[in-house]
């Protein structure tokens, strides 16, 4: 996608990415990539000792995967803001739908801006993350 995604965008437009079957390996890969070595995300016995059924994914893994929605839709350099609230946890085996819905299109200083609502929802229709983003074509 590119800056041209801004051309015909309107309120209510949607963009969706699906990731099926999260694995413990995904959590470990994010531990390396993102630097979160809290054992609750990779050490089964530690997670159980802390009262969890098993290890669960880092919130910032789900957040990072949700950030793909505005970045793929409008261009990685065009994301002006991105925010999230964690609602439920990501477990091994989960299938997650990452979705963006445009809620406002407007101009600021003559530059088109697009506001969107973001969500990450699992196979049980549970909201893992609620978020928002604003995109605008960036020029240096």
């Amino acid at each position, binding site marked *: 996608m590119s800056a041209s995604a801004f051309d015909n965008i309107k309120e209510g437009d949607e963009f969706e990415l699906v990731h099926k079957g999260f694995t413990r390996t995904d959590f470990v890969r994010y531990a390396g990539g993102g630097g979160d070595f809290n054992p609750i995300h990779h050490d089964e016995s530690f997670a159980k000792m802390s009262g969890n059924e098993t290890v669960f994914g880092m919130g*910032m893994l789900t957040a990072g995967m949700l950030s793909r929605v505005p970045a793929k839709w409008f261009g990685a*350099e065009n994301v002006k803001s991105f925010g999230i609230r964690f609602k439920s946890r990501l477990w091994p085996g989960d299938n997650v739908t990452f979705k963006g819905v445009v809620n406002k299109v407007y101009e600021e200083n003559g530059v088109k801006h697009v506001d969107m609502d973001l969500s990450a929802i699992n196979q049980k229709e549970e909201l893992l993350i609620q978020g928002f983003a604003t995109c605008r074509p960036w020029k240096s």
Partner: protein
Amino acid sequence: MLSPPVAKINPPGVPIERGKIHEFACSIYDDNPLYHDLEAAKAAGLPSVVAPPTYTSVQAFFFDPKDAGAILESGLDLDLRFVLHGGQEFYFERPIFAGDVLTAHQGEMRTYEKEGKRGGLMKFAEMESYYTDENDEVVLRVKNILIQTAGVVKK
């Protein structure tokens, strides 16, 4: 994720690196060429590959775990046993590129309380930080939200 106040943990001048961006982008399953491919970035008129929106959260972990206690000393008065990462917000003045050298600064901190849906008083702490580049220009503002629950969260 628990990250202590940023200014206490990050050495000044952390380089944003292509290899680390590639690794981070792979770990969030993002094949966007602007994260991985220098030629694609240059063809798009950019100086280098772009860092994904949440990339700077990597830097929150550039600290000695014993410094996590810095939260307690920061005047937020939180009980770390019950603190969860509630959310995070990123506001970009410009994209972050490989080759940037960024320095993190502590911004404002505030706490407030709210009645939780599952009962009990929840305490919120918002910690702001911002990143400057080599020209001392602010490129990114981050708000980190911590929640202290009344007890262990079951869900």
